[in-house]
């Protein structure tokens, strides 16, 4: 017991060090109890950390958001699950960081579906990222391309306005 680690340590409460809180001598030598309650602060911080950790990563990993594309807004939308992501630009379609035309995209989607051996129905969907100011003729060829490639579900990515 004499060699206990705790006995050798001279742990001082930081509040005790202040003379105003704990006067040494004289008239007003009565100790003022003014300890900071830090436990509740730690609790609040912990809750904040957990909240931020849970809410900070809502976007699926395979959806990389292109900042140049301003997504259309929709108040009522579903949770975005995994799928094959295609971005619509004025130069063509971007799929897996490659700019492709309609024919190349069709081939790439078919190839991708074969390679990834898609088993989940969720994964067999196409996620379309297009600018809200784009005209519909830029997006509409994707419907036929997806149908030819064997993709039945098309998800249009939207931005929550809240």
């Amino acid at each position, binding site marked *: 017991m004499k060699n206990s680690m705790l006995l050798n340590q001279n742990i001082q409460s930081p509040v005790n060090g202040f003379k105003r809180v704990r006067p040494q001598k004289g008239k007003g030598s009565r100790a003022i109890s003014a300890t900071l309650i830090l436990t509740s602060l730690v609790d609040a911080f912990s809750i904040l950390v957990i909240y931020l950790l849970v809410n900070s990563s809502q976007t699926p990993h395979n959806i990389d958001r292109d900042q140049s594309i301003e997504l259309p807004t929709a108040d009522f939308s*579903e949770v975005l699950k995994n799928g094959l992501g295609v971005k619509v630009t004025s130069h063509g379609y971007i799929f897996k960081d490659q700019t492709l035309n309609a024919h190349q995209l069709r081939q790439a989607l078919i190839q991708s579906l074969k390679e990834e051996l898609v088993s989940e129905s969720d994964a067999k969907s196409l996620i379309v990222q297009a600018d809200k100011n784009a*005209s519909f003729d830029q997006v509409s060829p994707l*419907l036929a391309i997806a149908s030819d490639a064997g993709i039945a579900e098309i998800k249009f*990515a*939207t931005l929550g306005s809240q």
Partner: protein
Amino acid sequence: MTMQKETNFEVNLFPVISLLAVLISFLLLTAVWEHIGSLSVKQAVGQSQMDQNQEDSSSLWIEIDAQGTFTVQIKERNERVVQSMKFRQSQDIYQRLTKVVASLHSRYPQIHMAFVAASAKTPYQSVIRALEILKLSKFKDIGVSPLG
């Protein structure tokens, strides 16, 4: 001779608070606050045909032309238009459309299919708004097609 050494068993919480403060700052800086959702539509794959055994194959169509005029139609299987309403661009067009589509769905509860048909020059945002209105009215099968 008794040696009484004062020991303090208080857990020092300052390093914990410092650590949490750093963690909160990091998470606040790196957090992505925008919520990305999706509106999904289903379509026929390859050469497959639509289900022929529907009880009632009437459908609701929202057609959007290049000028932003919305036309809501109830069509029968043989493309015969049962009801048609036109909405020109205005500030409250989406609120009016939502009300009309909801009332049509309650009037024709047997209709489960709804389509958005847009012209080539229709803004993509308008198509998404139309899809959102159909989703809000709880149509089961929603499709998109080019107009004309």
